[in-house]
């Protein structure tokens, strides 16, 4: 599904010989839902109407430019109005517009009817990742840019993006949906406005803090469909991809069962004692996924924008204050309340890591139990 052949747009002839070299995608995808195909049809209809009008208008202009010239000795006419002509070129566009508005309105009404869904998935936008929640199944997870893309996309990394599989379009945890069932997505956000856009599903909807939007899709064929955030949401707006995997129903059920098992295992992990090495290893993973976007992998932050952790008052100061700021965030800044996002074990691990990495040799470790206690 990723590589599509060229669909006739404008100028295809000119560019076709180059298709062997790279991905010269010209047109909107037809997509994998009935509505995405209908939207594609509307897009093409409007495009061809515009091309038709363009040919007439630019054609008349070109004829005039080549014939009605002074250097060809053409004498200027003196007419300067014609009520008939002006009525014609007001009425004809009006008729064309009405004939466009009718199918567009019909499609719009279908698109906006999210009732009688088989399944609901709640999507929450964060700076800069997505959270997916399946309320009926009790599944909930975060989805962020995979570490290979993040590494390669660092300024001056020297890594060739072409060498990364699905550069900037790969995530750690994809959202999974069943095919052939009406899936209703609910959209909201935790901090600023984001927009969830997957072209093949023809869904683009703003995720707005304090509000819940909805949109639906009934995907017709299994596959992987990719997209990314479409509303400017700060520094890493370009780095919050979306990966949707559509599975046959049986495969989907299996995925659900696996997710539930993993959730149970994670919850058990938070109830036991962890060794220092375990905490540091897990902590580095969590730091890379959740913290490095701002505080940087080096812990040096970005001066004036994101504070450094190396030698910071918090990371080398009182342990409870450190747990507190990770759990509750800092209002008025981009520092989020990770208490809602990460498990006790992950928070314990990342705090341990922060206090012992980048030359912060505090030597102390934090157990999940301490985080659990701090939550109360």
């Amino acid at each position, binding site marked *: 599904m990723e590589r599509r052949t060229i669909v006739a747009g404008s100028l295809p002839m000119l560019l076709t010989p180059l298709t062997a070299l790279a991905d010269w995608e010209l047109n909107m995808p037809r997509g994998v839902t009935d509505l995405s195909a209908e939207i594609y049809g509307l897009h093409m209809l409007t495009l061809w109407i515009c091309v038709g009008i363009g040919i007439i208008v630019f054609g008349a202009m070109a004829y005039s430019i080549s014939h009605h010239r002074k250097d060809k000795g053409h004498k200027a006419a003196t007419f300067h109005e014609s009520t008939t002509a*002006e009525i014609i070129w007001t009425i004809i566009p009006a008729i064309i517009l009405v004939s466009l508005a009718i199918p567009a309105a019909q499609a719009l009404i279908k698109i906006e009817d999210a009732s009688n869904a088989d399944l609901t998935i709640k999507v929450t936008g964060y700076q800069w990742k997505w959270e997916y929640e399946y309320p009926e199944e009790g599944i909930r997870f975060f989805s962020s840019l995979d570490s290979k893309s993040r590494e390669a996309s660092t300024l001056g990394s020297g890594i060739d*993006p072409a060498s990364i599989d699905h550069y900037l379009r790969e995530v750690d945890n994809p959202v999974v949906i069943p095919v052939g069932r009406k899936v209703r997505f609910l959209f909201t956000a935790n901090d600023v406005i984001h927009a969830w856009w997957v072209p093949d599903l023809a869904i683009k909807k703003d995720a707005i803090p304090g509000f819940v939007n909805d949109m639906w899709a009934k995907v017709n064929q299994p596959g992987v469909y990719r997209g990314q955030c479409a509303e400017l949401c700060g520094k890493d707006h370009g780095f919050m991809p979306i990966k949707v995997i559509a599975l046959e129903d049986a495969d989907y059920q299996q995925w659900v069962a696996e997710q539930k098992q993993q959730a149970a295992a994670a919850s058990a992990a938070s109830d036991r004692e962890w060794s220092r090495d375990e905490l540091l290893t897990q902590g580095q993973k969590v730091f890379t996924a959740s913290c490095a976007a701002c505080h940087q992998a080096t812990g040096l932050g970005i001066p004036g924008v994101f504070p450094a952790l190396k030698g910071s008052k918090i990371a080398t100061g009182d342990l409870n204050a450190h747990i507190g700021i990770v759990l509750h965030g800092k209002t008025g800044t981009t520092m989020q309340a990770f208490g809602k996002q990460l498990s006790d074990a992950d928070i314990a691990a990342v705090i341990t890591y922060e206090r012992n990495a980048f030359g912060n040799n505090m030597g102390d470790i934090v157990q999940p139990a301490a985080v659990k206690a701090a939550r109360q």
Partner: protein
Amino acid sequence: MTVPADLTHEDYGGHHGPRKGLLRWVTTTNHKDIGTLYLWFSLIMLFVGGAMAMIIRAELFQPGLQLVNPDFFNQMTTMHALVMIFGAVMPAFVGLANWMIPLMIGAPDMALPRLNNWSFWILPFAGTLLLSSLFVEGGAPAGGWTMYPPLVLQTGAAFPMLIFSVHLLGISSIMGSINIIATIMNLRAPGMGYMKMPLFVWTWFITAFLLIATMPVLAGAVTMLLTDKYFGTSFFNAAGGGDPVMFQHIFWFFGHPEVYILILPAFGIASQIIPTFARKPLFGYKSMVYATASIAVLSFIVWSHHMFTVGLPVGAELFFMVSTMLIAIPTGVKVFNWVATMWRGSMTFETPMLFAIGFIVLFTIGGFSGLMLAIAPADFQYQDSYFVVAHFHYVLVPGAVFSIMAASYYWLPKWTGHMYDEKLGKLHFWLSAIFVNLVFFPQHFLGLAGMPRRIPDYAVQFADFNMISSIGAMGFGLSQLLFAYIVIKTVRGGAKASDEVWEGAQGLEWTLSSPPPYHSFSVQPVIR
């Protein structure tokens, strides 16, 4: 600054022409001096905003981050838009209005000359305030020129600078508009009824009303942002009972008329230039005036088409889709009328005419993508993608900016008394016309293929068209240096321009000498 001798001895109520030196420009109340100041300011800002665009396109030349970090990239997109809209295009149109409206209606000067001085001199301060935010802690605003909360509230020390510079720019625009309206209503030569005014005067008259109606709305919106950030209000904060979407409604209630503020004067310019070089009167004068007025009225009831994905009720989506499509009708009338003006004329193709024709063709392409964007279901795919970037750059660059270039070449001989270098002018046109399409046409494909706007780095399938676009951008940017060179060369000297300048030119401005006397029409002409 040297002043032609015939201007310094003008006996006019104790005035003795312009002052000497720098003070002439600081204290001037002369419409031509102020027009000149506006135009130079605008040209400088064109290069400042253009340099930002070059940084953006250089970073987007290939995937991966090579030059700037994402935060600085966002500062560049935000500042590029603000500088180009409020610093380059709007002041250029006000500059043209200052120079040309008194000449076109047979007036000695603008109606409110001191206000005129103020409305210009606020601008350099507003611009400096805005640009200096690049150097404060946390950098310049990076939340987009649309300033959507809550994101914009994360701006650092630059935030109040952004808000106050927007206030200053708005005050300047409002004062300029009041002056234009007062001038047009009061200082027309005897016999020049409203329906005899040149189209450029008409389009500016309507634009000035749009400015007065919408700038206070923008000022209100940004003031609410300011109090949300510093004084604990919650206008746009959902947690405090506010509504972040309300900002978007208020912003676009300003923003959509703003779009027409940037294009209506361009319509006026095309309507002046096409008849001159077709040697044939403008086709459908009355319908041109009515079309402009209806576009202005419609501009107030289409704003939510910028927000089709925020979750509007389906009824609102239908309304804004249909009202937006309606705009195609008066806009179409204008394009058809320009073509009908050219039809069976006796055309020559000097640089202003080339830019005017380029304007009509490329603006129409931007209009077509505008019609596509109006179709709400399809807009769910286009919204916030590069398709939108392509669309609005087609209407703003080969639209508004080309019309300003056309006007500059058209009136430069009148302003300076010298002919510009026609060969270089034509070269400038062809370079600009080719490169501008190379920059923006591939962006349609990028948007349709799924590339969002305002991203510093992209998936590798977007690499090829981005590279083409970046090459086009560098070419377009460099071509504009040629424009600056041509303008400076013309100011400094050149073949003497006649009063009429162009063979087919009609209108009062061509009855005065080139350059016109310091106080334009000391004696009002009478229109039969």
